[in-house]
């Protein structure tokens, strides 16, 4: 007898357990998955459906060791995410997933790990940080280089402080602009790469943020001596089906939803450098 194959397009309603306003336009939704869990790997995403409004792909930003809570962090940038932000505790959201290729953490075992995040790009990397902190001895130096638009736009401040205090992760934060009271670094995130404490030939780099920022970061990592095949980037495209059928997220020869959204940099470098894809 054939076993039933779960329908990859089936939407499951989930209740919102908590809404956290992270910055003026970024927020986190914690969804209840106590009825069976929602296992995922760092870097994967879910399709979130605001009933009657629309569906959007959002990376999971929670702890992979806590599958009974589904956590997503996103910004209010369009109709669906604005409607999502208006939802309150107890409201229902449709969830399907997880989808996509995860960050290749197995490649990082025994090596230095460089995480380069820009803006909301820190959210898809947070599960990696949870996983690394939980298995800290498996890795060499772990460096997080994080760039935000301004000090007010910095995500997950408390956790950044906690990881820094635990000496689990060497955290460097920079902002693109700041007023005089800001005591930290000002400049773009690739400018942090040159002096970050990692051994380039023995490092794996995971980069997530706007495409231009990823391109310049990859250039900086290569210049520092990180091998091209040890750099991974997370792409973002307009995903609809999320299972590689509809073609909305086509990126050159790839479907971002199925072949990505995490890609080896070497596979997409030519496309990232192109004027329009």
């Amino acid at each position, binding site marked *: 007898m054939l076993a039933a194959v779960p329908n990859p397009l089936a939407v499951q309603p989930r209740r919102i357990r908590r809404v956290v306003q992270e910055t003026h336009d970024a927020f986190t939704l914690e969804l209840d998955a106590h009825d069976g869990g929602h296992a995922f790997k760092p870097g994967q995403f879910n399709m979130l459906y605001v009933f009657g409004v629309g569906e959007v792909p959002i990376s999971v930003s929670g702890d992979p060791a806590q599958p009974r809570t589904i956590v997503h962090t996103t910004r209010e*940038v369009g109709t669906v995410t604005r409607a999502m932000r208006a939802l309150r505790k107890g409201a229902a959201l449709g969830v399907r997933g997880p989808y996509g290729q995860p960050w290749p953490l197995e490649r990082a075992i025994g090596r230095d790990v460089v995480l380069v995040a820009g803006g909301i790009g820190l959210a898809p990397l947070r599960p990696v940080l949870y996983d690394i902190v939980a298995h800290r001895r498996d890795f060499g130096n772990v460096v997080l280089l994080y760039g935000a638009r301004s000090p007010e736009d910095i995500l997950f401040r408390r956790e950044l402080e906690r990881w820094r205090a635990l000496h689990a992760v060497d955290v460097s934060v920079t902002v693109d*602009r700041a007023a*005089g*009271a800001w005591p930290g670094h000002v400049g773009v995130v690739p400018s942090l790469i040159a002096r970050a404490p990692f051994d380039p030939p023995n490092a794996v780099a995971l980069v997530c943020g*706007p495409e*231009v*920022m990823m391109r310049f970061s990859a250039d900086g990592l290569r210049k520092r001596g990180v091998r091209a095949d040890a750099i991974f980037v997370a792409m973002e495209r307009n995903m609809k089906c999320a299972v590689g059928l509809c073609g909305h997220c086509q990126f050159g020869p790839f479907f971002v939803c199925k072949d990505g959204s995490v890609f080896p940099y070497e596979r997409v470098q030519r496309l990232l450098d192109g004027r329009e894809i």
Partner: protein
Amino acid sequence: MNSVETLEPILSAHPFFHDLDPHYLSIIVGCARNVRFRTGDFLFRSGEEATQFFLIRAGRVALEVSAPGRPPLIIQTVGEGEILGFSWLIPPYCTVFDARAVEATRAIALDGTCLRAKCEADHSVGYELLKRVAQIMQERLQQTRLQLLDVYGQRT
């Protein structure tokens, strides 16, 4: 006999002078002195004569621009292993921004007038120095262009 420690080992250990010919270093070191700044001290202010540039050894310095009725805006910070100040090299040798220590900062200050004279006297030193300065200028220009893109802003 008293021995005098020179700044040569410190200069050669700074990334800006990485792998510099020791002969050039011995020429440049005569323009160098050790300096320290407390948090809040100004290394220089906008509009002053640009008399020196700095090799930052530790700490952090903010380059700021002021506008009436607004708090100063930090446009860049420089820290350990970086250099601060290009105006000593380019006429009219006048600083453009305020440079304020946001942390206790240790640096080597290089006298711009002294360096320019040495570069004029020995163009091979001048060329070597200019190549290094030009590379940093190019990096900072690229970084500024990236900043101008405002990549984390809302798309309109």
